[in-house]
């Protein structure tokens, strides 16, 4: 919690980026090895694009240069197929980096995860795009990153529990989707998109509402009989939940204030 507060105050943007890179590195390395040269080329292009924007904004706005796009590029390459045309990668990553992050002042100042925005734009741009299902190895490699982000306070346990309860609860009540398959796509989507501290709510109640909404929205976007489970609805669930995150915080604070008034008269 202390670490998160530190980061949100803008002093620890480097530590936030560094920790996120450490978390995303193992699954990214596995995916790059599995998918071979096309994925490496895509990663190189993605890196170049986001770093050019980071540098341009640092120059124009007289800020220090922070390679905040590194995590955006890494998460984008981790979750997309390597055969997307490079110019689509350029357009979607440029729009997502600029509109989703840099116009607000950089990492920690916006309310969206640029990686989620980039993936949503890619899905809207290519209606037939099928995001590859992460291999079991890649999904398992996300777990050390999840542990690291939980320990450093960058990923909230409240969000995790609320997300798992909402998504798992609906699954057990109504959906016939294979649980192992669901977990395979849900782990990377949660760790790198939904749990993003800059996109999620900041109060305890807000986080519970945010995680719960994200978990329920997966079934809204994917359909209650999501078979097989895919990562697509999780991206739109993450985007929608993060748009509502400030509202969840507002509701949580209003409820807390009201409860306090009732208690103390």
């Amino acid at each position, binding site marked *: 919690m202390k670490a998160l507060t530190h980061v949100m*105050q*803008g*002093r620890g943007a480097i530590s936030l980026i560094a920790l996120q890179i450490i978390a995303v590195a193992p699954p990214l390395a596995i995916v790059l090895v599995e998918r071979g040269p096309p994925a490496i080329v895509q990663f190189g292009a993605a890196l170049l694009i986001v770093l050019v924007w980071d540098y341009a904004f640092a120059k124009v*706005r*007289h*800020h220090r240069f922070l390679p905040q796009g590194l995590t955006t590029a890494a998460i984008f390459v981790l979750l997309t197929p390597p055969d997307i*045309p490079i*110019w*689509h990668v350029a*357009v*979607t990553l440029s*729009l997502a980096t600029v*509109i989703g992050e840099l116009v607000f*002042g950089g990492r920690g*100042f916006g309310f969206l995860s640029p990686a989620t925005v980039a993936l949503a*734009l890619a899905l*809207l*741009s*290519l*209606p037939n795009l099928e995001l590859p299902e992460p291999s079991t190895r890649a999904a398992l490699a996300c777990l050390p990153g999840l542990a690291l982000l939980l320990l450093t306070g960058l990923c909230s346990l409240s969000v995790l529990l609320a997300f798992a309860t909402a998504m798992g609860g609906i699954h057990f009540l109504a959906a016939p989707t294979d649980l192992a398959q669901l977990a395979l796509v849900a782990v990377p989507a949660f760790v790198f998109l939904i749990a993003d501290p800059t996109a999620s709510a900041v109060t305890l109640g807000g986080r519970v509402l945010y995680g719960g909404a994200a978990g329920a929205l997966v079934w809204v976007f994917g359909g209650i009989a999501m078979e097989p489970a895919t990562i697509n609805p999780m991206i739109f669930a993450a985007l929608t939940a993060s748009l509502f995150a400030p509202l969840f915080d507002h509701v949580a604070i209003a409820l807390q204030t009201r409860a306090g008034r009732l208690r103390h008269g």
Partner: protein
Amino acid sequence: MAKALSQFTRQLVAQNPVTHQILGVCSALAVTTSLDTALMMSAALTAVICLSSAIISFLRHHIPQAIRLIVQITIIASLVIVIDELMRAFAFELSRALSVYVGLIVTNCLVLGRAEAFAMRNPVAPSLLDALGNGIGYSLILIIVGSIRELLGHGTLLGITILPIVADGGWFQPLSFMQLAPAAFFIIGLMVWSIRSLDLSEAEIAEYDLQGERSQG
């Protein structure tokens, strides 16, 4: 007249109704999926705004203040109906593609805005020039946005193939996102941003200092 002429040129970029005054954005988002609809809408709006401004300016001394808006809307609506009927008669397919947006020129804040702000207070010639400047300024933005969206979304311009798409054996993979309304929103937003960055007199005063926020943190 020289003043009116300089006002006319300013309305193309510096005082552009869409990017500076943020007027007429609704139709600019809706009809720019292709260049032909953008051109047709531009022509329709420019005709309506010019004619309405000229008529309202001509009648300005005879319009009672209390009912001026009713009279202005009646004049604009009559002109829109005539333009809409002409389009149905001579460009039926495009008229269908534009659907309700031609009729909605009546409620376009740009047309009523110029009538109320300029034509009601000025003679016919300057009013006509002001309306023409605004019409062309609006058209300029629609044509730019329509060209970008059609070219990147379909690989064509006015239906003519410029970038052969993969589905037809070419190399270009269209960006379907460009055909959705948010794309127009992003393009217009980026244009507003670019203009305000280049012309610092257009920039709004920041509500807070990000650098200051950072140093306090």
